[in-house]
């Protein structure tokens, strides 16, 4: 593996009630995070291809970790998202190199299908900072009940020369979703939008 991983973390959140109402079945979201060495920290490098390869590795690894943590078969997953936070000695473009060119394909393999764009966010930050991972339905970006996000943080990451890379996968939309729009069971799942 090209990625030099210092630490991995997996978060699972289960909501059982909201505003005193039962959420049945509970909504479940998982996020997997890898803290890696930034090979380009502290200097400008034109060619970012090493981080693109790392992105592909981590898309598969973190996607599989999420699915395992949810304890379901990949076809039971419903939404996904990705994000990266670059430590202070790196640049935002390093996050882009991990997230955009190569991460999607192995991530889609891990969750099966995935016709929709994987929503993403990125930032530069320091240890303990929150990273918001946006979430959208994996086969149809317009499914309104599945627009969501998951926050992750690690108190000691990212250090200056590190990058924190995160993938989130769910088996559900928001708890008590009720603002209309395209529903998950009406999805065609061909164009990634509807």
């Amino acid at each position, binding site marked *: 593996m090209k990625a030099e*991983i*210092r630490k*991995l*973390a997996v*978060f699972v*959140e*289960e*909501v*059982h*009630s909201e505003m005193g109402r039962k959420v049945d079945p509970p909504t479940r979201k998982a996020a997997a995070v890898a803290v890696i060495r930034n090979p380009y920290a502290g200097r400008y490098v034109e060619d970012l291809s090493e981080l693109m390869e790392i992105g592909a590795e981590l898309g598969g690894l973190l996607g599989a970790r999420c699915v395992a943590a949810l304890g379901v078969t990949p076809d039971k997953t419903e939404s996904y998202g990705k994000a990266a936070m670059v430590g202070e000695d790196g640049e935002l473009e390093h996050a882009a190199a991990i997230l955009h060119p190569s991460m999607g394909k192995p991530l889609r393999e891990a969750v099966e299908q995935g016709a929709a764009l994987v929503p993403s966010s990125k930032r530069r930050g320091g240890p303990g900072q929150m990273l918001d991972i946006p979430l959208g339905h994996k086969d149809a970006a317009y499914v309104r009940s599945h627009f969501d996000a998951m926050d992750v943080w690690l108190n000691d990451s990212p250090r200056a020369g590190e990058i924190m890379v995160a993938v989130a996968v769910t088996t559900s939309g928001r708890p008590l979703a009720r603002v209309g729009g395209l529903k998950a069971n009406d999805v065609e799942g061909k164009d990634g939008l509807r």
Partner: protein
Amino acid sequence: MPEPKVRKFLTVVEEILHEGGPVADKPLKRGAILAVIENPFAGHYHEDISGFMKDLEPLGLEMANLLIAALGGNKADIQGYGKGAIVGQAGELEHGALWHVPGGYAMRDALGDAKAIVPSTKKVGGPGTRLDVPVTHINASYVRSHFDAMEVGVPDAPRSHELVVALVMTTGSRIHARVGGLSADAIKGEDGLR
């Protein structure tokens, strides 16, 4: 007193491969489980609250077993533990103290014959408040390599009328422990201290 009303669970498992030194053969795992529950005493001063400790016992045991499962499922792998609570702003610190007995009982019961006192901490806070949960060896509090901590919290909890209760377990010493003191293989494991 009714059974605790759970709004959500969050589990977090960190796998630490190194922290700048040699990569460990076996990564250290640090795990936490947090439950967000309704605080039945929020908003008023109640003199008699101690009955709730008994009500928390089944939840504690369920959480301890879920955490062991998240750490690989083998209770013999667990070497360190700690616990904590965050009280929403309509409650008082004393409500957090209700977690001492059921939280500790739960982990000792789930782990079998753990001898050491379970270190703990608590505070009043709002959504996103973090808590540094102290961790020590499960059979001998003086084991220096196992003095550790895990920062935990829930992005949207505790709301003012909620409590966050937390359990933490680890599978070993700090990843590059090297400051001497009583070592885990030299303990007697009788008095919970050495």
